[in-house]
């Protein structure tokens, strides 16, 4: 144990204070013990989605310094490049100051300041009308916020199915791919066992999720000498310190993983015991082509799936006592031919088409490299097995003397997610981990509570009636479909949601498709809406594909001269590009001025050793007439009289968000925060509201974290002690094991529907697509846009990433961060550039089938030869974000989004689908193909397309020409300059 005097991640002997920290008598007059602040407030960072604990030092009402909270489970005292720049975010001149009402044309930026009463009256009158007539005409979509359990519930109570957050254009493939397979996922609901893993594979851009835990973890791996293998077209960031860098071709990770699976199967290097205990590998799949049961599991009378018992030579329930399931062979049960799932897996991936030699060229990875990595994985998993001296009991009651582990762990995020084949690729990575027996074992990939849940988790999406006047939905708008009849489509198979989530075009769209909303609303497809209510999502700029066209759609008018999207309400803390396209602007606070809760009902701060949640609380008072969005939403809910937001007498039920956080109960005893529940504050998980709950959180540093007992920490999918605890804490309805779904029956049901079986079948035009992409085992297919464009005309893949000091940082125009990156270059492989006659610093047109963008190149060796990449969202529009007219962001930086189509080319069925994963609807940002053309003389030096300057809203100050923040704190001077 570390001595208690040295807490946190950076507490090695070489990182501690001097043995004697008394100031030496140097006699140079330096003040070595200046006062830092008057007080320290411990709250939660919001410079990205990572949710680290921070200590905010305040002096004379101003923020002096922010550092990491050493006790916090997420960041253990460290803080990232964004977190320390939070001061500049908080004091940004781009902060909105007062509600704004549009006075000029939409997009002109002409507003007048109005009072909150007027703003809320305008909003509530409009919304009240929609609620009483046709609630689905409100489309309510939120960006990178962390309050979806509130916003989703608000949409439910309002009665609109048209709600989602930003996951559809972010990482729903990672969520859905994991949740439908293992009942957990990368980042949010799982993490590598940083303390014990010996071999870590990192797929694709992962600097987005999550920030500090991965960095802390990488530091631990380095300190222990564990091997780090990165599979990424770009050798930047985390990849720079990997032991092996596999510079793979974008969109081929699935093939690469399946070739490794091929090798492991070929060599018999898979964990059969693990497969039998924790997966559906032994479950029997019907082989009855042409029937409605083909490919479904055989089930007993009680509905339990059957396995073939090798001893009894008979089919028995998978959970029958003593069942010895076969993993191979063909059987006939009650006249139905069937095979175990594992037989299907082996047949598929042992096919030479999945062998290293077959995939090598497409992946751009030598076959020998694939074989070597497969051999290394097998070696570490099976020759370097670890064993923790912790006894545990599995769900069947069997006692295990130790916890055995196969110390191989994997992580993937945006790089896998942002391809149209990302769902299947994510499933393939989890399949690989499961075959190695490395999920939730020591050294493997571990679940974070409240996960694992059943695969897929329980609630289905609500809104099948399309939303009825004055009627709440019967459940939350977002959920998990398990079969075609769960889709939100009408009798003709047409989408019921404006974003077409849970339709045949995106059946497993667990996070919605925010990136399709503006186009669909503009086109009135599937129907027109009235009000688009957006929060914290820059949809008129970097959060949309096809930005030029998106801006046009936001301002387009119908034949009657009115806007095709009639009314836009936007809530944001900063003057982003989207502000100019709103009719009503509701100014939010900064993260230091508000309450928030990072809830187990939503996206908590749990780690694998225990559940946790956290709050933000106001540590400084706003100096502007702004209100926190969530409090405004609660106010609107009360003004509308939404059930749950008012008492029986119609009075507002909650004073503000803080009041809601403490007193709202989703189920009896279960509220937004799990810690210090019960009137005496003694309960965790379940308990009555505690009026002092927020004070308890604040006293504890802004978070609650429960440490599991040692016997609960691994094998959570089948660990009796864990499962019992999960039920007690409200995570699971019953203490039943989670069986990993290597073969996904829900997907097979969609396939059967495509063949005309079942209660819901796709329209003819969609059938082939459903049949192809809803494969119950992971498949690889060429990314959709790539497959549809002329690869010779557009020979290069184009992808983006955000710099680590800006990832997820809302408004990274901040005065400090922009000094690190204010112009993005297009990075081109040096050899590739030489072949094209391009040299460093050339200006080029980046041309795609969708459009073209102009930017400046930078050559590098560490990028796949067929790939170009750039920093995303560095380019800003002139006039936005408080930047001056000569800022690099709006002159030399470029936004690749202009070249990324939001629709795929027209298919053989005549339809244009969104540029998304066909299973989940995840935006396929990284499928882009481009060619480069050197600029003509005179075209160099400025990025294109250029847009008219946005007008600065009334009330916002001009940004300063000089910043001497901190002068007021100088210990030796009183004449602050």
């Amino acid at each position, binding site marked *: 144990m570390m001595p208690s005097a*040295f*807490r946190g991640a950076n507490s*090695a*002997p*070489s*990182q*501690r*204070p*001097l043995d004697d*920290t008394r*100031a030496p008598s140097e006699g*140079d007059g330096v003040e*070595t013990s200046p006062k*830092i602040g008057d007080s320290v407030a411990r709250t939660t960072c919001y410079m990205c989605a990572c949710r680290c604990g921070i200590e905010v030092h305040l002096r004379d009402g101003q923020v*002096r*310094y922010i*550092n*990491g909270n050493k006790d916090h489970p997420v960041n253990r005292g460290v*803080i*990232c*490049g964004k977190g*320390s720049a939070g001061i500049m975010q908080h004091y940004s001149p781009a902060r909105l100051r007062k509600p704004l009402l549009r006075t000029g044309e939409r997009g002109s930026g002409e507003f007048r300041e109005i009072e909150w009463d007027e703003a809320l009256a305008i909003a509530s009158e409009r919304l009240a009308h929609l609620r009483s007539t046709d609630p689905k005409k409100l489309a309510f979509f939120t960006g990178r916020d962390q309050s979806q359990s509130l916003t989703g519930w608000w949409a439910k109570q309002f009665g609109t199915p048209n709600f989602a957050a930003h996951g559809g254009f972010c990482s729903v493939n990672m969520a859905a791919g994991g949740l439908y397979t293992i009942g957990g996922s990368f980042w949010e609901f799982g993490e590598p066992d940083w303390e014990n893993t*010996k071999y870590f594979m990192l797929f694709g851009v992962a600097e987005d999720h999550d920030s500090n835990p991965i960095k802390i973890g*990488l*530091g631990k791996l*380095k*300190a222990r000498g564990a*091997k780090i293998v990165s599979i990424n077209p770009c050798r*930047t960031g985390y*990849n*720079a*310190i990997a032991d092996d860098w596999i510079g793979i071709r974008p969109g081929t990770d699935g093939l690469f993983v399946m070739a490794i699976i091929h090798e492991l199967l*070929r060599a018999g290097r898979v964990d*059969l015991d693990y497969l039998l205990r924790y997966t559906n590998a032994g479950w029997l799949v019907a082989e009855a082509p042409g029937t409605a049961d083909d490919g479904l599991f055989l089930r007993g009378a009680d509905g339990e799936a059957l396995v073939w018992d090798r001893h009894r030579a008979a089919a028995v329930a998978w959970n029958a006592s003593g069942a010895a399931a*076969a993993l191979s062979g063909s059987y006939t049960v009650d006249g139905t031919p069937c095979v175990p799932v594992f037989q299907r897996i*082996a047949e598929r991936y042992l096919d030479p088409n999945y062998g290293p030699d077959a995939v090598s060229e497409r992946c751009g990875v030598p076959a020998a490299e694939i*074989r*070597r990595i497969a*051999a*290394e994985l097998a*070696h*570490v998993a099976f020759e370097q097995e670890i064993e923790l001296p912790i006894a545990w009991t599995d769900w069947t009651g069997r006692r295990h003397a130790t916890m055995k582990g196969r110390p191989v762990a994997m992580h993937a995020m945006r790089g896998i997610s942002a391809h149209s084949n990302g769902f299947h690729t994510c499933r393939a990575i989890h399949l690989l981990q499961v075959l190695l027996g490395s999920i939730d074992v020591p050294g493997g990939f571990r679940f974070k509570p409240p996960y694992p849940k059943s695969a897929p988790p329980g609630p289905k999406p609500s809104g099948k009636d399309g939303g009825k006047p004055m009627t709440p939905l019967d459940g939350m708008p977002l959920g998990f479909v398990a079969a075609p009849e769960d889709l939100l489509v009408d009798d003709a198979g047409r989408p019921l949601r404006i974003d077409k989530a849970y339709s045949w075009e995106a059946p497993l769209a667990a996070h919605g498709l925010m990136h399709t909303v503006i186009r669909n609303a503009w086109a009135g497809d599937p129907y027109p809406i009235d009000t688009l209510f957006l929060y914290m999502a820059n949809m008129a700029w970097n959060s949309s594909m096809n930005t030029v066209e998106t801006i046009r759609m936001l301002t387009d008018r119908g034949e009657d001269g009115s806007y095709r999207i009639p009314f836009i309400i936007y809530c944001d803390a900063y003057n982003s590009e989207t502000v100019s396209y709103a009719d009503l602007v509701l100014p939010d606070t900064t993260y230091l001025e508000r309450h928030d809760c990072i809830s187990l009902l939503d996206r908590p701060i749990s780690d694998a050793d225990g559940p946790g949640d956290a709050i933000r609380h106001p540590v400084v008072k706003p100096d502007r007439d702004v209100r926190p969005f969530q409090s405004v939403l609660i106010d609107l809910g009360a003004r509308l009289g939404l059930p749950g937001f008012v008492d029986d007498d119609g009075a507002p039920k909650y004073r503000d968000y803080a009041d809601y956080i403490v007193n709202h109960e989703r189920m009896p005893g279960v509220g937004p925060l799990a810690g210090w529940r019960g009137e005496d504050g003694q309960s965790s998980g379940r308990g009555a509201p505690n009026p002092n709950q927020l004070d308890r959180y604040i006293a504890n540093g802004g978070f609650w974290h429960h440490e599991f007992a040692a016997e609960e920490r691994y094998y959570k999918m089948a660990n009796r002690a864990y499962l019992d605890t999960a039920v007690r804490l409200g995570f699971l309805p019953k203490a039943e094991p989670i069986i990993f779904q290597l073969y996904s029956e829900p997907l097979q049901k969609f396939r059967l529907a495509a063949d005309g079986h079942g209660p819901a079948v796709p329209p003819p035009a969609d059938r082939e697509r459903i049949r192809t992409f809803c494969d119950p085992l992971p498949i690889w297919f060429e990314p959709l846009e790539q497959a549809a464009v002329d690869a010779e005309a557009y020979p290069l893949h184009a992808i983006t990433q955000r710099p680590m*000091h800006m990832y997820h940082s809302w408004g990274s*125009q901040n*005065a400090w961060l*922009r*000094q690190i990156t204010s112009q993005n270059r297009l990075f081109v492989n040096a050899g590739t550039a030489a072949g094209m006659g391009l040299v460093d610093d050339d200006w080029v047109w980046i041309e795609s089938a969708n459009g073209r963008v102009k930017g400046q190149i930078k050559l590098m*060796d560490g990028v796949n030869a067929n790939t170009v990449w750039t920093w995303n969202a560095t380019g800003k529009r002139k006039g936005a974000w408080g*930047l*001056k007219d*000569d*800022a690099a962001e709006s*002159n030399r930086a470029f936004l690749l989004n202009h070249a990324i189509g939001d629709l795929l080319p027209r298919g053989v069925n005549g339809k244009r689908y969104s540029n998304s994963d066909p299973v989940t609807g995840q935006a396929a940002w990284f499928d882009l193909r481009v060619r480069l053309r050197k600029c003509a003389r005179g075209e160099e030096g400025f990025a294109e397309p250029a847009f008219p300057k946005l007008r600065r809203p009334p009330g916002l100050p001009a940004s300063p020409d000089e*910043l*001497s*923040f*901190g002068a007021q*704190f*100088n*210990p030796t001077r009183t004449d602050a300059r």
Partner: protein
Amino acid sequence: MTCVPAATDRKLGLVIDLDTCVGCQACVTSCKEWNTGGQMAPLTDIHPYGGDVDGVWFNRVHTYEHSTAAGTRTVNFPRSCLHCAEPACVTVCPTGASYKRKSDGIVLVDEDKCIGCKLCSWACPYGAREFDVAVGVMKKCTLCVDRIYNDNLPEEDRVPACVAACPTSARHFGDLGDPASAVSALVAERGGVALMPELDYQPTNRYLPPRARTDRAPKMNASPLEDASPHGGFLGWVDRMLSR
């Protein structure tokens, strides 16, 4: 011309692990944040929202590609004052503003004596000096002299801001003049190097080099994968395994 002490009681400095640094800029902004309100406050930013933005930073990270016999690699390289034993920036200073502390070896600037002549920035071969145009004086890394001895901070926090912040644990701090110190042991173990020692300014800070790819990769000794059962096929192997 300003004299430097013949010897210092301690040689305080940083040890930076280039094998672990991912270039995340955490040390850069935490340094900026602390020091813009610290001993040399402010660290002025000129045109902070404009096209020719120019700010004072005591610590910057550069990323570049480095060619070796085994191919190129990406290196993230944090750069700040190295607190040299023979600092050219001090000896060149005409007013005594730049000086090296005898007690701990930290190189500082006394702003009251600095005339902004910039000779020190020309003399420093490491580019570690930062001129504050608005204030008219030279500024630089103080090794957080206002943190490491600060009675107003809990004892455990008395380390440079960059060391406390670093998310990958790539930064270390201590007395490099004491061979028994933890940082000295780390330098010895990892073959830490001084930058451009041939110039003989005797920098205190040390960098731990990225390990050569062949050395740093843990030895796997993984045998090539052989067919599980050349005769019965894979599924035959499964049968045999389950029949054990």
